[in-house]
């Protein structure tokens, strides 16, 4: 069986070194993804390599990394699609690196919370009244935005987030829209208040890198477009209201 070379970025802050690349040779197995190769390295070549992973089926969102410069889930990246190699593996772009391929995700998790991703209602519906009615069409209004696995690939792909860390960013905006468009929710105004101060939304050039790299076809770029339209509508509304008074 032929081998393929992985050039993996290493970084160990305790030793005060700059990041460097380390080469590993792994078997080029047809059914192996990059994550299998990393596990092979960890188990048989170098136990000190650090990276995150868990489900190996593209749903836990742990194992994102830059592979040949593109943010992807390493569990869904077959070695053969990069043959003959070498394959360059780096931590996800735009996040501070903790160690090797592990990045600091606290900013992302804080951003999720900031958009209030829960059902907001003026009055709670008692459980005794049963379920909210929601037709399949109403479900479809927000379903796609609910598919986000929080893998953060879209942040690594986003040129605005790369420059402007205050930007709420693609996944969190899609998540806000997931609740805004859910007919059980009444929190749209509350969320818009938080988002109206976000300059990043207007800086988004709509090139759609975020939607391109999304492994779940969530289309955060579409969500951002919806905000822009809603924001513009609000601006017109305020103008008309002002004229009327």
């Amino acid at each position: 069986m032929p081998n393929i070379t992985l050039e993996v970025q290493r970084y160990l802050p305790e030793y005060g070194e700059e990041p460097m690349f380390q080469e590993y040779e792994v078997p080029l197995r047809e059914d192996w993804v990059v994550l299998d190769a990393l596990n092979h390295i960890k188990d048989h070549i170098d136990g000190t390599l650090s990276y995150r992973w868990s489900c190996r089926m593209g749903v836990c969102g742990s194992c994102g990394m830059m592979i040949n410069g593109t943010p992807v889930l390493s569990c869904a990246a077959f070695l053969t699609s990069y043959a003959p190699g070498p394959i360059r593996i780096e931590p996800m772009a735009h996040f501070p690196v903790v160690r090797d391929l592990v990045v600091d995700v606290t900013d992302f998790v804080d951003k999720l919370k900031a958009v209030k991703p829960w059902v907001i209602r003026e009055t709670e519906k008692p459980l005794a009244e049963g379920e909210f009615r929601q037709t399949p069409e109403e479900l479809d209004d927000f379903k796609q935005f609910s598919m986000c696995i929080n893998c953060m690939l879209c942040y690594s792909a986003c040129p605005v987030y790369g420059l402007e860390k205050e930007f709420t960013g693609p996944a969190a905006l899609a998540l806000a829209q997931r609740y805004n468009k859910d007919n059980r929710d009444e929190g749209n105004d509350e969320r818009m208040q938080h988002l109206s101060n976000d300059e990043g939304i207007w800086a988004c050039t709509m090139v759609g890198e975020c939607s391109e790299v999304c492994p779940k076809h969530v289309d955060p770029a579409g969500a951002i477009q919806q905000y822009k339209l809603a924001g513009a509508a609000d601006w017109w509304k305020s103008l008309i209201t002002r004229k009327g008074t």
Partner: protein
Amino acid sequence: MAQEEISEYDVLIVGGGGAGLRAAIAAYESDPTLKIAVVSKVYPMRSHTVSAEGGAAAVIKPDDSLEDHCYDTVSGADWMCDQDAVESFVNEAPNELLQMEHWGCPWSREEDGSVAVRPFGGMKIKRTWYASDKTGFHMLHTLFQTSLKYDPIKRYDEWFVTKLLVEDGRCQGVVAIELATGRVESILARSVIVSTGGCGKIFPFTTNANIKNGDGMSLAYRAGVPLKDMEFVQYHPTGLPFTGILITEASRAEGGHLLNKDGYRYLQDYDLGKPEPEPVLRSMELGPRDRLSQAFVKEQEKGGTMVGEYGHYVHLDIRHLGKKKIEARIPFVRELCLKYENIDPVKEMIPVRPVVHYMMGGISTDIDAATPLPGLYSAGEAACVSINGANRLGSNSLTEILVFGARAGKNAATFAREQGKTSSGVHAQIRDEQQRLGQLLNGGGTESIAGLRKEMQDTMEEGAGIYRTHSSLAKSSEKIQQLQERIGNVAVGDSSLTFNTELPAAIELTYMLDGAEAIIQSALNRKESRGSHQRSDHPDRDDENFLSHSLAYREQGGPPRIEYLPVTITKWPPGERVYG
């Protein structure tokens, strides 16, 4: 997390999956003044609840009844579950799923906007709520997102628990490593809930994620709490060869067929009913998981399976459902097959084989989610109440994490309110644990983690698989005890404190070996066949001697001591399991 923060809580939850998050919310709602924390070795949305696909069972439709859900569960469990627990579970299930609906879970719907239900294996009426075929994913994210609105619920994300602190006869917190920094800290609490899930990674071929090492089971076991019914290990009949990726039972509920090498629906030869074109509840492909996995082995012995690079397999055929139905009801099945197996189930048959999926056993709890150790509670796959007995029905576990997660949260909150200050004796334990971990990091052992893990997994498959015998189990028992000794000499080559993933892997291996010895000893002692526990040397069920839960207690320097606890029977006397 700043060092100066006081890490003392009323309720501490270990594990941030579905059961843990549900427990945290329940604890908060029962008393918003309590200090609550969730400690998890991964960010909560990475927890393995995320991988559950098919759905969650609860009686909501007019043609269904609580009685029927109870009976399906009890007979599915081969009468090994506690019927009072099953009744509570079934009664509380509808409200828990409704609560999820009110929190925004995107359940699939009927045309009129009501929640839709689908059939599932071993259930005689359609009662499985589902969110397409990503039900666990949607439930976990709904719980996680909802939990964010409760500011008092503090999170310790990516903290790895290494010890339960027990002093003065009660559990008073944990010692944990902050993975980012390697800091070893105590997190004290008046009550602790363990909801760390199962331990499928003890076996070589499993649907379980890398994080499923039975951490909490082992922590409780080391604290003197028994592990209950560990011999009952569920093999799911349809995993993808090599990866072990699960192809949901919903694929069969929607009408998929299991075919042998001749394209024959072989389940008809194993007391599972007659083949009909449309799915029939509690029949054929909708039989229970234990029976389907056992039928696979029998069919293999008969020469009806096919052989590939990763061993024997059969075909799951969903082509006749058509692309439209596949895309609407089980889109994840198609995505997984395309992405990971490079086949399109719209046009091709899916190769599948039985795969270790779920632990019916776990930390022994009562119906209130309390363990025998005061102050320690458990819920979800980590726990054994038991509602799952000798074989869990598909779609009961997602509901179980809610019902018993909520119970654990409420009861742990009540217990916490009644406790005084932390005992001073815990501080000596914390120092000892810090020292132990320091030694492990700089120990200079020679045994490789991956090597020992592989030996453990191989002996578990050989000795404690779908069919077991005294001699296969005895051989594996000996092997596991050797590994228990050799793990003392494990090499941790990474001495860095920053996000060291090798140290946790070594400790996880010690957790798995504890789970392995409990599984094997419980299986050795149960000289009967029941549900998922099939002894070729004792092929019949033996209610006279074994209608009892096994309790595995840890012993120093050898396999566990096994005791028994009678099964609770309320309304359904032991009967024959009839399917088809």
